[in-house]
């Protein structure tokens, strides 16, 4: 089956075109060894022949620096084992920003692959008074140039006809200065090692391979470095000469293709930016939008969350009525259903967040948020693009971590992922509410104290987040090249279809990737809290004698300095599945041996306050409660986040490091609080 690759700058409507071509036939996987999405689908040409369509990650140039940029370069040069070299490329070019988009296009056209140029967003160009001649461009380039509006599918038929041509032409190659050509030819010889296809590269292909020392997994790194040195020697300043040579050609192309210049005067984007990036109004709008967004997430998500909760409860009851009592039934209800349910319950929040993040990305406002926040984020070595992922993490770290893909710099992206779990997510709320309730027993006067405590916990997490970001920024070695260049694309009305498709894709990843890990760990945790079984007895006996109960007792010496007993130790272990499990575990452990209450209706907080230590003093005294709260602010008690970090960093090293540093921090902070309070005489 012939393979057609779509290439283009980000924000050119490339993905809209891909969706229009492939519809629901598309599949998203990862390129081997990197966390770059590989989007593939199929489509039929005019004659009904099936072809594979590959949507390559958007990039501005073939000189690659980030993994996202290395993929299109390597696929087009035929350097990837997992992806066949395309038989044809469709270069998607934004007509309203021709000069800059043509930079990538001329590089690609010079690779010696048959090509079609799609002049997308003709409507946007025309609205600005810009008239382009596709025919003139086609004449100059020597390949079909098709004017198009991918969002309304205008031009699709012409594109399909072009794609159906048996013999697509090669573009007329650009001509570089002689000295550059000679040097590149020599460098290509140097590159043509055994087992590579580098010898068949065109001069521009050779140049794009040499232009950067981006991440390159191949064995050719030494050869590339040697060829670069050769270039430096033979043709000093070759990179500048190459860029200038491309731009010289682009200048001629633009001049010949332009029939009428764009009218001057502010565009709609200019007018919008005057308000949205205004020194004062900009903050008001950003603050208002984010407040509205979170208010919507928490209020709207509450409804389906109740349904899911009820649904899982109902299913568990149903299983209990229809299955005979026994281990298998317990495994299903208490292991699988309870474990998966405790994570699926956050799906509405996660989906809403993904939806809003998708809208922010596709309208172009995301780049503005980065622009406004860059200075603040820069203080701790992060980039403005880290703001939305970190903010999202206050609802749930999972969509936050998945949203870090927009951060181009791998180091800044990694730092953002590592600190995201320090944002107090909504799963911590039940723990916070319960422990604050134990700490401050009711009374109207306490309401403001409770609010102050709650805010303090969020502030503590936030301070920790920035502190660790700054520490990692200082410690992690920086790669070459650190300049931040952020494009502020024109505002667009987002295509709902594209937003929903991506939402579906992200949800699928969450359910399959996190889901499998969650299922396994839920079952393991269930087993740990159920076995070995006591001969007879209630829930408490079961828990105390179980592996988890024994573990709780084993770690008691370790957690005693924090002010916890072994029952709390069980809670800590069980809540590794998900933080809010701590509340239900505490409930099981302390409720069952409550002599005053057979009904199980007394508030858990009251019950916990009545627990006594061996010496008769209250178990949940102020310093224990504080120590527990501080522990939950820092601890990474969430296996779903670990699973997502593993996926996004493509290694076990970083999730383990994340778990380690957060757990150690949580332990030390809780120790400091408990022992410090003790020293102060509390």
């Amino acid at each position, binding site marked *: 089956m012939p393979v057609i690759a779509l290439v283009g700058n980000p924000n050119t409507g490339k993905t809209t075109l891909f969706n229009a071509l492939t519809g629901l036939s598309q599949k998203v996987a990862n390129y081997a060894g990197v966390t770059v999405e590989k989007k593939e689908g199929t489509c039929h040409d005019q004659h009904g022949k099936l072809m594979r369509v590959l949507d390559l990650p958007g990039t*501005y*140039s073939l*000189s690659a*620096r980030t993994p996202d940029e290395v993929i299109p370069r390597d696929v087009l040069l035929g350097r990837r084992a997992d992806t066949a070299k395309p038989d044809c490329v469709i270069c998607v070019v934004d007509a*309203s*920003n*021709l*000069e*800059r988009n043509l*930079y990538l296009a001329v590089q690609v056209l010079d690779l010696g692959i048959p090509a079609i140029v799609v002049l997308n967003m003709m409507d946007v160009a025309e609205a600005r008074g810009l008239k382009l001649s596709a025919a003139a461009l086609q004449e100059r380039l020597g390949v079909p140039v098709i004017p198009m509006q991918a969002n309304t599918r205008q031009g699709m038929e012409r594109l399909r006809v072009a794609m159906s041509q048996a013999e697509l032409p090669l573009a007329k190659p650009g001509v570089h200065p002689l000295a550059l050509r000679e040097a590149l030819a020599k460098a290509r010889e140097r590159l043509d090692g055994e087992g590579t296809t580098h010898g068949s590269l065109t001069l521009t292909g050779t140049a794009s391979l040499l*232009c*950067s*020392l981006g991440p390159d997994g191949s064995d050719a790194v030494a050869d590339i470095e040697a060829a670069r040195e050769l270039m430096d020697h033979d043709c000093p300043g070759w*990179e*500048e000469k190459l*860029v*200038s040579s491309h*731009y010289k050609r682009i200048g001629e192309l633009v001049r010949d293709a332009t029939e009428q210049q764009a009218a001057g005067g502010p565009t709609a*984007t200019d007018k919008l*930016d005057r308000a949205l*990036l*205004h*020194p*004062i109004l*900009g*903050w008001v709008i950003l603050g208002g939008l984010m407040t509205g967004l979170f208010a919507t997430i928490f209020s709207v998500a509450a409804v389906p969350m109740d349904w899911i909760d009820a649904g899982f409860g109902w299913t568990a009851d149903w299983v209990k009525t229809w299955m005979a009592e026994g281990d298998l039934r317990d495994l299903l209800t208490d292991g699988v259903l309870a474990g998966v349910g405790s994570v699926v319950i956050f799906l509405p929040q996660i989906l809403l967040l993904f939806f809003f993040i998708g809208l922010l990305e596709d309208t172009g406002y995301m*780049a503005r948020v*980065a*622009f*406004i926040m*860059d*200075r*603040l984020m*820069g203080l701790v070595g992060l980039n*403005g693009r880290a703001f939305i992922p970190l903010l999202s993490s206050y609802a749930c770290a999972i969509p936050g971590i998945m949203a870090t893909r927009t951060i181009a710099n791998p180091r800044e992206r990694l730092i953002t992922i590592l600190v995201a779990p320090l944002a107090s997510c909504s799963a911590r709320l039940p723990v916070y509410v319960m422990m604050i309730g134990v700490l401050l027993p009711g009374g109207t006067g306490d309401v403001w104290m409770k609010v102050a405590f709650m805010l303090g916990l969020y502030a503590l997490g936030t301070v920790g987040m920035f502190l660790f970001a700054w520490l990692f920024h200082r410690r992690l070695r920086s790669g*070459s*090249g*650190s*300049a*931040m*260049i*952020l*494009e*502020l*694309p024109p505002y667009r009305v987002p295509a709902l279809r594209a937003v929903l498709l991506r939402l579906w894709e992200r949800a699928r990843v969450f359910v399959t990737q996190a889901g499998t890990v969650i299922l396994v760990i839920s079952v393991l945790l269930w087993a740990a809290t159920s076995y070995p079984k006591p001969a007879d007895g209630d829930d408490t006996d079961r828990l105390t004698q179980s592996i988890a109960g024994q573990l709780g007792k084993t770690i008691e010496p370790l957690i005693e300095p924090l002010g916890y007993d072994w029952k709390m130790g069980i809670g800590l272990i069980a809540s590794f599945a998900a933080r809010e499990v701590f509340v239900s575990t505490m409930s099981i452990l302390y409720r069952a041996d409550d002599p005053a209450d057979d009904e199980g209706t007394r508030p858990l907080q009251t019950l916990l306050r009545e627990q006594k230590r061996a010496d008769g003093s209250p178990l949940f005294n102020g310093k224990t409660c504080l120590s527990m709260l501080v522990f939950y602010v820092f601890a990474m008690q969430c296996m779903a986040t670990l699973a997502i970090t593993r996926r996004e960093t493509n290694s076990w090293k970083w999730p383990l490091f994340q778990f380690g540093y957060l757990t150690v921090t949580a332990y030390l902070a809780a120790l400091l609080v408990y022992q410090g309070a003790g020293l102060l005489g509390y």
Partner: protein
Amino acid sequence: MDNTLTPLSGMQVGAAGAVETIDLMRDDSLRVREIGFLPGAMVRVIRRAPLGDPIEVEIGGAHLALRRADAALISVRITADA
């Protein structure tokens, strides 16, 4: 003020000029050139971010944000004042 050489970071909002030299690190320099900062290219400062950094510039029809520390390494011959 015509024809004076100024770092891009020091330009007034609204001022325009022609790029003269680019002194960033090698990889950054290539990247900056590729997005259109070539000697002779016209660049205009659109605005500063609300906190003063980064700055938004227009070059080759595109709007880009650069940190002032990076913009300081690009010198511009001013042709139009703010």
